[in-house]
């Protein structure tokens, strides 16, 4: 299969042709690996991939073809190659979280999301680079070096799921999984010019996702178009007894509505889109504002009503997030102590010394910083001033969404990020880096679904528009995104 033919195929088209017997999964896998080689996805070039093994992937392709999988060879993702962020457990494959402390760790179990995708015939072809333990907004905090943006190798991919976003953007895979705690799917999706989805908290099982901040963590998806993103989310959503935070709420067939929308000139009739001024501050660049205005004009032309709303606590999201997330991380990452799995520093004289030496050797600077910060805000004397306070303000942020969605709005539209991708090494101040998440962290704090889709380019780099919906209203979010994507057409990438 020619590289351009492979890149033109979306996941839904691959599975349809595999199911019809007109495309061999082995051919698709070979094309994926050829494309990875062509773009230089390995360590020495773009540095998007931490693990890949064509023999393993080809063995899976044979299983799909022979119908050896539980669903036979005709699943909804039959023969579709996918990339997986390296903090999601994949049975028998490395899961390192891009950290020295988990170097060489091979998972003895599998994330529910991966199992569900494999059941539908998807094939894991790569584990992708990321910020260590998902702590970062640029994929520069990886123990294996920074990932490079395929649109301009001098720039970051965004993060923390930068490797997955860039693998989709560069045509290595049509779909990928990432994870979100404060925007780690949507922000790199915007920087790399692909679709990125964060579901409602509880919509997708986190079983097998290495925990960072449990009240904020989500598994999300990347794709080159909204239809494929909806296909992945339909597949991985739903209750899982192994995750007590997964919701027992039926999952809608998000893609069914797309069929009727395609024949309607105003598919967003009856939809009200809220625009909050707090997401369009003075510092927002002219280009980003222009692209958002164009997207809003298109939404109006599609039948949507656009109204102004107020989200007065938006600016507090970063201070709140960077108290709660490190606090939860300091607890979750206590398990990496050199006892049960991962690396252990040898030569320590005592158990306590071994804990300290192993963790200090194993964790990189940003993870160390966040563990210290989290431990500090939870420690005696500071708990009320920081942690309890942040939890209370989190309620105010969540109330902003509750009020807007209980009123007239079906969805909100915002820019995904304040800027496009920035140069590798440019941002050295931790808090300045944290501000990359200013438009995305709110949805994690409130638990509402949100997604980013390409809305054009600024200075030659992709820019993302964000659609946010109410809890478990992913169907509305996908409806608006699908219509906007179709209306933008080629403009989405210009």
């Amino acid at each position: 299969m020619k590289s351009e033919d492979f890149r033109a195929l979306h996941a839904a088209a691959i599975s349809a042709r595999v199911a019809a017997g007109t495309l061999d999964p082995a051919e698709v896998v070979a094309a994926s690996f050829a494309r990875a080689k062509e773009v230089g996805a390995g360590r020495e070039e773009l540095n998007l991939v931490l693990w890949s093994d064509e023999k393993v992937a080809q063995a899976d392709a044979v299983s799909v073809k022979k119908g050896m999988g539980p669903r036979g060879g005709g699943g909804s993702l039959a023969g579709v190659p996918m990339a997986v962020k390296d903090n999601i457990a994949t049975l028998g494959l490395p899961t390192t979280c891009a950290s020295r402390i988990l170097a060489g760790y091979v998972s003895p179990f599998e994330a529910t999301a991966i199992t569900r995708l494999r059941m539908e015939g998807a094939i894991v072809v790569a584990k992708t680079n990321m910020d260590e333990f998902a702590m970062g907004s640029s994929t520069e905090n990886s123990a294996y070096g920074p990932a490079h943006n395929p649109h301009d190798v001098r720039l970051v991919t965004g993060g923390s799921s930068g490797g997955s976003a860039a693998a989709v953007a560069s045509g290595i895979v049509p779909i990928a999984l990432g994870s979100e705690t404060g925007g780690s799917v949507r922000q790199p999706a915007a920087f790399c010019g692909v679709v990125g989805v964060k579901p409602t908290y509880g919509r997708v099982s986190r079983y097998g996702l290495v925990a960072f901040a449990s009240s904020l963590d989500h598994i999300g998806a990347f794709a080159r178009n909204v239809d494929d993103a909806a296909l992945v989310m339909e597949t991985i959503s739903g209750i899982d007894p192994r995750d007590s935070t997964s919701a027992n709420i039926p999952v809608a067939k998000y893609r069914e509505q797309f069929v009727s929308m395609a024949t309607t000139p105003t598919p967003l009739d009856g939809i009200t889109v809220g625009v909050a001024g707090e997401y369009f501050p003075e510092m927002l660049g002219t280009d980003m504002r222009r692209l958002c205005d164009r997207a809003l004009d298109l939404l109006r032309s599609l039948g949507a009503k656009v109204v102004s709303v107020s989200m007065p606590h938006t600016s507090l999201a970063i201070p709140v997030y960077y108290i709660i997330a490190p606090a939860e991380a300091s607890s979750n990452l206590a398990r990496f102590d050199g006892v049960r799995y991962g690396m252990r520093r040898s030569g320590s004289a005592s158990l306590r010394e071994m804990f300290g030496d192993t963790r200090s050797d194993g964790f990189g600077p940003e993870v160390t910083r966040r563990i210290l910060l989290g431990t500090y805000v939870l420690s005696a004397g500071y708990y009320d001033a920081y942690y309890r306070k942040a939890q209370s303000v989190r309620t105010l942020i969540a109330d902003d969404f509750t009020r807007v969605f209980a009123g007239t709005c079906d969805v909100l539209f915002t820019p995904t990020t304040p800027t496009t991708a920035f140069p590798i090494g440019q941002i050295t101040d931790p808090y300045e880096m944290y501000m990359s998440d200013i438009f995305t962290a709110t949805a994690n704090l409130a638990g509402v679904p949100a997604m980013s889709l390409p809305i054009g380019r600024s200075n030659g780099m992709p820019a993302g528009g964000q659609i946010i919906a109410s809890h478990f209203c992913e169907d509305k979010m996908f409806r608006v995104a699908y219509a906007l994507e179709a209306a933008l057409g080629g403009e989405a990438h210009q």
Partner: protein
Amino acid sequence: MAVSHSEVKHVAELARLTVSDARLDELAAELNGILVHMDVLARLDTSGLSAPSPAPGCTHLRSDSSGPIPLMAPREAFAPSIREGFFTVPRLATHEVTEAADAAGPTP
């Protein structure tokens, strides 16, 4: 509320991190550089507010029972040190080290 060197050292001990004295300056400056941005929260009146549920109504309780851990590989495949099914670790404290104990190997 500026973080002092001694507080960084104390917090590092709580977090089981070994931090050299040479790094205390740098870490204290970094933490203070971040925490100064949190001061905005102190000015808000949050009396009567509590933590929200990330997604109302989604959390359910499971039965208080244990089941098999679905590991597809033995612990030996991923443990740093294991003997007879037990994870082995260095001695709890250096003062417990004796020649006889050393000869016996790691304590399960």
